[in-house]
C-alpha cells in the first residue's frame, strides 16, 4: 500500500462525477417537491363547497376583486392554505433538524415533548387566560424554549448524551400532554373543536392574524437553520468526529435547537401540534433524496406537502370533516410498520 500525495486523474474524475450525480438527484427531488407543493396549494384554493377555476383564484391572489371568489378564496381559503404551507415547512424543518442532530428518526420534537410543551402553553393561554394573537404566540415560544432548556438541562450530566435527552423528552412530553388535558378539562364549556386543535392540530378557522406570526418566524429562523446545514451534517458522524472536523458541537446544537424550537412554537401557536408532521417529513425526504446531502430543504417541502394533502383529505375525502392532525397522526402508524419491515431487511439501527 503506498500513500500518494497527488491523486490519479481518474480518481479525481470519479469523485467529481459522483458528487455531481448526487447533487443532481437532490436538485431533481427538490424541484419536484416544490412543484407538488405549488399544485397542492392551488388545489386547496380552488376546491371547496364551490369550485373556482384557476383564473379566478389567481386574480384573487393578485389582489383584484372577483365577486364571490374574493370572500371565499381570499378570506377563507387563502389564510388556511398559507398557514398549511408555513406550518408544514416549519414542522418539517424543525423535525429533520432534531432527527439529524440526535441521529435517530424517532427523535422528532413531537415525540420528545417540545411540541407538547408549546401546545400546553398555548392551550393554557387561550382557554384559561383568554388571550389571543401575538400573546399566545409569545407564550408558546417562551414555554417551548423553556421546555427545550429544561430537557437539555436535565439531560446534562458530563455533557449531553443523545439517548438521555430523548428519554427525558419523552417524560416531559407525557407531562405536557396531561397539562393540556387538564387545561381542556377546566374549560367551562367543553369545546371539542378547540380541544382537538390543541391535542392533534387543526387548520379550521385559520385567520391572517394567526398566520402572520408563523410566517415571520419562518422567514427569520428558516435561514438561520439553513446556515447550519454543513455543521449539522457533520454532527451526523458523531459528536467526537464532528468536533474533530472543527464543528463547535455545543454551539451548533444550541443554535439549531433555538431556531427549530422557535419555528415549532410559532407554528404550534397558530394551528396546534399537527401530529407527526415533524416525525414523518425527515424520513420521507431521506427516502426520496437518498444519502445525497442535507435533508433540510427537502424535509421542509415534504412537511408542507403533507399538511396540504392531509388537510385536503381530512376535509373532503371522508364523510366527516377531520382536522388535519388526525389524518397525519393516523399516517404515523403505517410509517412505524414500514420502519419495522425496512429495519428487518437491512439490520440497521433505529
Amino acid at each position, binding site marked *: 500500500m503506498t500513500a500518494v500525495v497527488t491523486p490519479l486523474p481518474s480518481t479525481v474524475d470519479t469523485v467529481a462525477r459522483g458528487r455531481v450525480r448526487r447533487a443532481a438527484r437532490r436538485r431533481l427531488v427538490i424541484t419536484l417537491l416544490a412543484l407538488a407543493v405549488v399544485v397542492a396549494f392551488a388545489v386547496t384554493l380552488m376546491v371547496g363547497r364551490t369550485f373556482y377555476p384557476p383564473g379566478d383564484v389567481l386574480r384573487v391572489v393578485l389582489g383584484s376583486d372577483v365577486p364571490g371568489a374574493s370572500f371565499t378564496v381570499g378570506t377563507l381559503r387563502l389564510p388556511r392554505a398559507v398557514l398549511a404551507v408555513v406550518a408544514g415547512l416549519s414542522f418539517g424543518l424543525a423535525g429533520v433538524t432534531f432527527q439529524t442532530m440526535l441521529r435517530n428518526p424517532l427523535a422528532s420534537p413531537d415525540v420528545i415533548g417540545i411540541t407538547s410543551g408549546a401546545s400546553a402553553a398555548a392551550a393554557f393561554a387561550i382557554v384559561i387566560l383568554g388571550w389571543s394573537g401575538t400573546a399566545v404566540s409569545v407564550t408558546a415560544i417562551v414555554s417551548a424554549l423553556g421546555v427545550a432548556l429544561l430537557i437539555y438541562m436535565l439531560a446534562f450530566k458530563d455533557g449531553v448524551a443523545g439517548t438521555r435527552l430523548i428519554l427525558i423528552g419523552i417524560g416531559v412530553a407525557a407531562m405536557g400532554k396531561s397539562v393540556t388535558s387538564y387545561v381542556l378539562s377546566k374549560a367551562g364549556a367543553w369545546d371539542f373543536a378547540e380541544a382537538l386543535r390543541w391535542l392533534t392540530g387543526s387548520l379550521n378557522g385559520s385567520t391572517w392574524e394567526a398566520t402572520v406570526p408563523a410566517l415571520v418566524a419562518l422567514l427569520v429562523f428558516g435561514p438561520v437553520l439553513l446556515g447550519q446545514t454543513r455543521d449539522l451534517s457533520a454532527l451526523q458522524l458523531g459528536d467526537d468526529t464532528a*468536533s474533530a472536523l472543527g464543528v463547535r458541537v455545543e454551539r451548533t446544537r444550541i443554535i439549531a435547537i433555538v431556531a427549530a424550537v422557535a419555528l415549532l412554537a410559532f407554528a404550534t401557536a397558530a394551528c396546534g401540534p399537527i401530529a407527526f408532521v415533524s416525525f414523518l417529513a425527515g424520513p420521507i425526504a431521506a427516502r426520496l433524496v437518498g444519502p445525497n446531502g442535507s435533508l433540510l430543504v427537502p424535509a421542509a417541502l415534504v412537511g408542507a406537502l403533507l399538511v396540504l394533502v392531509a388537510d385536503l383529505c381530512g376535509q373532503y375525502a371522508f364523510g366527516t370533516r377531520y382536522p388535519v392532525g388526525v389524518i397525519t397522526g393516523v399516517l404515523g402508524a403505517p410509517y412505524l410498520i414500514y420502519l419495522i419491515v425496512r429495519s428487518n431487511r437491512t439490520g440497521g439501527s433505529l
Partner: protein
Amino acid sequence: MTATHSLAAEDLTLAYGERTVIEGLDLLVPPGRITAVVGANACGKSTLLRSMSRLLAPRSGRVLLDGKAVHRLPAKELARTLGLLPQSPIAPEGITVADLVGRGRHPHQRVFSRWSKEDDAAVAAALDATETTPLADRAVDELSGGQRQRVWIAMALAQQTDLLLLDEPTTFLDVAHQIEVLDLLTDLNRTRGTTIVMVLHDLNLAARYADHLVALSGGQIHAAGTPEDVLTEECVRAVFGLDSQVIVDPTSGKPLMLPMGRHHTAPRADVLQGTSGS
C-alpha cells in the same frame, strides 16, 4: 507538508465529574513520528486523546499545539492542523464512501462556499492513499470492517492535517486487517511526515509500529520512550499487574511481550528448550 507542528500536554488534569482520570500529566509528542499510547483498561488512554483534540476541556493544565492552548484555538483552524478518528465514529445510513470521505473537507469550507477543485483532489488523494477508490460509490454500510476502517482513515486524510490522532484504530478488526491499517498509517507517516498518535490495545503491535511508546498507569505516565526502553518486564508488571517475559521479536527486532499466567507457563529454561509445561 512538513511535520513542524508540536503537540504537548502540560501538567494536564482531566476528570469526568468528580472522577479524576488523568492527573498532572506532562507529555511531548515527537513531531513526524508515530506515538502509541498503551495501558490497562480504563487508565485514561482515550481520555487523554480526547483532551489533546479539544473534545474534553482540562480540569487544569493545558494542551499546547505549537505553543498555543488547543482549547483556545478557533475550532476550524485546529481542525485543519489536527485530525482525530474516534473509536466508534457513526456513518449516516446509506452514505456513500466518496460522500463520507468528502465530509472530511468540512474545516476547509465556509458556510455557503461551493465545493472546490481542491476538495475533489483532496478526496481523491485520500481514496487513492487508502486504496478505497474502487469503493467510492458503494454504501459504507455494506463494507467489511477492515474496508470501513480504511474509509474512516480516508476521511481523516481528506482533512489534510499534519497531526492525526486515532483512538484504537484496530479494534474489532481481525489480525490481517489490523496489520493492513497499521501499515497504512506507517506509509502516511513515512511519505507525508504525518505525526501520528494512536491508542492501541495490543502491546506487541504497539511496540512494533510505534517510534515512541507511552505507557499510562493510574492517570500518570509510567514510562515513555523507544519501545525497547518502555516495553520491559518491570513495566508490564507495573502497568498491567501481569508477569511476563519480553524477548526480541525475531521478525521486527522490536521487543515482544509474552504474558505469563498461572497455567501453561514453564520455567524459563524449559521455554528456551522447547519442552511443554503443566
